[in-house]
């Protein structure tokens, strides 16, 4: 009101205020805009991945039992693909997976860790059983025919291929995707767990995912 009656002299505050507003208002609008836009930039990735990962599989456990993705009703499946001749990455990841489950306390009972071979020629069901026993009694190793492994790996988007290291029949290593998936009891992907993470970071990711799946508990 005062401004209309008493125009301010040049250089006083009343001219400084509108020019400041010209700066502040657009800045505020930009920040508000980012708050709205950024979540949308991040979210579309998830539904796309969710529809890709997971699927039916038919494999064999160390006791020779046929198992499918439905063989552990009510449980989360913590799934990692690898092979027992892998000296470096697979043991690290499996050790961190079992460490993560130790850290989950009673929630560990809700999770079934699975190690599925991408090298069924060498990793027979009994080889897988003896191998997984070195890490944890709860870790279950799964093998199958080459076709069964291919089907399971395809369901989880796992790439694998032998790489020759010598002339002998066993002179090869396996290139393979190193990814850990947490599948919810109903079969959808609850989380992708960083396979290069420590037991601590894996446990944190698993707990976060479980809370999202079961907000009440």
């Amino acid at each position: 009101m005062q401004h209309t009656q008493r125009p301010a002299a040049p250089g006083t505050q009343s001219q400084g205020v509108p020019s400041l507003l010209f700066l502040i208002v657009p800045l505020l609008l930009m920040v508000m805009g980012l708050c709205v836009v950024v979540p949308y930039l991040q979210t579309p990735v998830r539904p796309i991945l969710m529809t890709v990962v997971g699927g039916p599989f038919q494999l064999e456990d160390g006791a020779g039992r046929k198992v499918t993705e439905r063989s552990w009703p009510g449980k989360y499946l913590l799934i990692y693909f690898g092979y027992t001749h892998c000296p470096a990455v697979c043991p690290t990841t499996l050790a961190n997976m079992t460490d993560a489950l130790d850290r989950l306390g009673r929630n560990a009972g809700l999770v079934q860790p699975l190690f599925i071979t991408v090298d069924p020629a060498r990793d027979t069901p009994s080889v897988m059983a003896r191998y997984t026993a070195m890490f944890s009694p709860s870790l279950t190793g799964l093998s199958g025919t080459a076709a069964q492994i291919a089907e399971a790996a395809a369901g989880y988007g796992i790439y694998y291929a032998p790489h020759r290291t010598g002339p002998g029949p066993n002179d090869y290593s396996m290139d393979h995707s190193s990814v850990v998936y947490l599948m919810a009891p109903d079969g959808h992907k609850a989380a992708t767990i960083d396979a290069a993470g420590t037991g601590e970071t894996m446990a944190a990711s698993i707990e976060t995912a479980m809370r999202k799946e079961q907000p009440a508990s």
Partner: protein
Amino acid sequence: MTLLRPALLLTALAWLPLAAAASPPVQLRDAWSRATMSTETGGVYLTIVNQGAADALVGADTPAAAHARLHRMSMEGNVMTMRPLADLPIAAGETVRLDPAGDHIMLEDMKQPLGRGQTFPITLHFRHAGAVSTTVRVGSAGAQGPGQGPGQGPAPAHGAAPAMDMSHGL
């Protein structure tokens, strides 16, 4: 990949004038391995401290296995690959760590499976320093570092966190 413990650096500096005569230019530390189920493959991991001129690791051998080869594990996207490595250059004054997450020595066709708590000798061959031997200690199948069991995590001095790259400082 490179690290040098401060204490080691001080020791190295203090003895610099006598170093050539007093100790070999390349030293091996904290060699470890993981228990294996089969005799087909195993890994050896250790720290190479080069207090001399630029050199290269060109091979290894051990009575524990028919072959001990240099391997490089690398990740392309999320795909793990393992490839033989012809040699591993080591700069003057550099400390290089061989570990499961990168370059390592792969044992093939072992005499017996590696058992936790066992030890065995290994000799590394360097282009200039020649043969340097050390003893490998076998940890659990899921060991994460020298003298570690599963879940204990790597020892701070050898872990990824407090690494100091001193390769240009010496």
